[in-house]
């Protein structure tokens, strides 16, 4: 509430970030893996009899690679940054202030990556072979360190480890529990992508059965071992996950629309299965090198894209209900404030800076709360639609549910007075019930509370689905 809210209809800010991010992650990993690939391939070509053929293929590889990564990689990378500052300025600000020089260092890597890649590509044919090998190697090392750096920040958001608002020790935050497993996994993913990209380019080389076979074997060696090792690293990563996330993946809670199968579980499976599909399709490519068309190779690349989509969504959702784990909730609430009962219960709009004046318990009141606390993740009728999730809600159920939603493990605590809660509930159900007013909800709820001294009963998670 410190900042204004970026309200994207239908998609929602979060999905905008996600869409840009999954494209970027694919390309950026490819950008690094491709470097290693070029480095090794240069050596390989040096040893081979038909080295020139191979090097011609490598040149082609580099050309596509350069265009693809420098255009889309660089700009989608900036795109993530742009979109997160819109979707969640508060968290972005914290990350930037904590890690500004990590990012600055990463930027040095970008600069190096870019320049070295240009020297490698434009020096083609004139540079000595050793110079090319040196450049390719340097490119890989530099690029990999950019991963090393950003990986620290990414994992920090999920597992801040020893870091806390009171003890902002950058090293503790950077080398957090999730750092190593995720670093290794990403490195292997890079190799896989480099190999697949190689297969795509291999299908473009002029018809030459033996040669293409040779290249595809070479590329497969980049994919298959990595694809086999990753599951084991995943187990390691699993141990660093917060308990809440583990419960979620195992289907511990019932989402209102999603069923027992939380989105996070679905994405987890997407990642796992895509890994398997990649492995199989590459094995097919090995068995029948001449059968793989460019379309088929691109199909494999798409599988990788879906796998990355699954993996990254899974990682993002493991953070629920936080943006920065155990620190900042997805609705802009700082965890340190949750202990303070009357901070949580006091009127929300008094604390908000950016809202327009509202008439209490009006629909506008509810909408304002919705914009400030919900649109970070939800849309009204699009992605993570509120309308479908509340389709069978009654105003009172909403009123009670909001006060206990954090027990589902996926939602942050609601902050605000009973009036705010009633107003929001009235707004949430307004899609299918335009008659119930916040006032009525509040009054009947108050009656309830006076009737049974048990006050608001905590709705057990299992009942959220059907309850009326």
């Amino acid at each position, binding site marked *: 509430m410190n900042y204004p809210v970026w309200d994207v209809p239908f998609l929602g800010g979060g999905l905008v970030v996600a869409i840009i991010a999954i494209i970027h992650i694919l390309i950026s990993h490819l950008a690094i893996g491709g470097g290693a690939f070029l480095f090794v391939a240069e050596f390989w070509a040096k040893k081979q009899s038909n080295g020139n053929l191979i090097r011609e293929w490598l040149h082609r590889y580099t050309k596509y690679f350069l265009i693809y990564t420098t255009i889309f990689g660089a700009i989608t990378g900036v795109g993530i940054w742009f979109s997160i500052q819109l979707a969640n300025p508060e968290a972005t600000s914290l990350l930037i202030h904590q890690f500004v020089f990590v990012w600055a260092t990463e930027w040095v890597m970008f600069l190096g990556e870019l320049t070295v890649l240009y020297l490698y590509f434009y020096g083609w044919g004139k540079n000595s072979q050793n110079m090319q090998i040196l450049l390719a190697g340097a490119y890989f090392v530099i690029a990999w360190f950019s991963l090393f750096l950003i990986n620290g920040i990414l994992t920090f958001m999920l597992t801040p480890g020893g870091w806390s608002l009171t003890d902002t020790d950058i090293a503790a935050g950077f080398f957090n529990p999730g750092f190593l497993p995720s670093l290794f996994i990403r490195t292997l993913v890079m190799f896989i992508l480099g190999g697949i990209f190689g297969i795509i380019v291999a299908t473009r080389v002029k018809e030459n059965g033996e040669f293409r076979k040779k290249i595809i074997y070479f590329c497969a060696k980049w994919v*298959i071992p990595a694809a*086999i090792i990753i599951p084991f690293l995943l187990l390691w990563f699993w141990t660093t996950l917060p308990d809440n996330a583990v419960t979620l993946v195992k289907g511990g809670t019932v989402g209102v629309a999603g069923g027992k199968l939380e989105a996070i579980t679905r994405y987890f499976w997407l990642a796992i299965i895509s890994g*398997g599909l990649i*492995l199989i399709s590459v094995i097919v490519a*090995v068995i029948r090198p001449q059968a793989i068309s460019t379309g088929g190779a691109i199909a494999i690349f798409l599988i990788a894209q879906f796998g990355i989509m699954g993996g990254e969504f899974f990682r993002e959702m493991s953070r629920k209900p936080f943006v920065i784990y155990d620190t900042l909730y997805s609705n802009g609430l700082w965890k340190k404030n949750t202990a303070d009962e009357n901070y949580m219960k006091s009127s929300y709009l008094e604390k908000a800076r950016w809202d327009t004046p509202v008439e209490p318990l009006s629909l506008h009141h509810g909408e304002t709360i919705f914009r400030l606390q919900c649109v970070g993740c939800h849309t009204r009728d699009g992605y993570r639609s509120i309308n479908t999730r509340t389709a069978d809600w009654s105003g009172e159920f909403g009123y009670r549910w909001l006060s206990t939603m954090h027990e589902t493990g996926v939602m942050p605590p609601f902050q605000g007075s009973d009036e705010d809660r009633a107003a929001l509930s009235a707004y949430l159900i307004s899609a299918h019930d335009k008659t119930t007013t916040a006032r009525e909800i509040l009054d009947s709820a108050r009656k309830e509370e006076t009737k049974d001294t048990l006050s608001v009963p905590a709705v057990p998670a299992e009942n959220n689905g059907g309850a009326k």
Partner: protein
Amino acid sequence: MAENENKSRRNFLGILGALGLGWIGALVYPIFRYLSPQKVPDPFGEDGLALVENINPADVARPGMGKNGGYGGRGLIVFRNKSNKLKAFDSKCTHAGCNVEFQGDKIYCNCHGGTYDLNGKNIAGPPPKPLTELGVEEKDGALYVFRMVNDKAEGA
């Protein structure tokens, strides 16, 4: 030489194929979970009692009266023996799982002629084990059964 390479490659591929299958296990696992049955709820509530269906106290008012009924989705028989004591057994025959029948002096299974005495002990025919006995009590106009403690067949 080349053949050797070929062979080793084939073995390599074999191993990979196996691992690929392992991966695909991930694809099959959801289906397996989907098909595997959910846990059957315990018929006895937290107070240890289960309501007896289709039998009301009047049906077993006098000695020698008995009837087949159900509790928590399973079948049972309730009857009043000579010594005017209410007895209840899970009606699942221990031989082939048919529902047994109370025949006044004995409990009889029509499928294969398994016979039990009124204490549920298997006295003739194929049944290997006695019937599972249940505790039974009458509470405000309805019959309830509960698990017999020190009952071997418990949980069967």
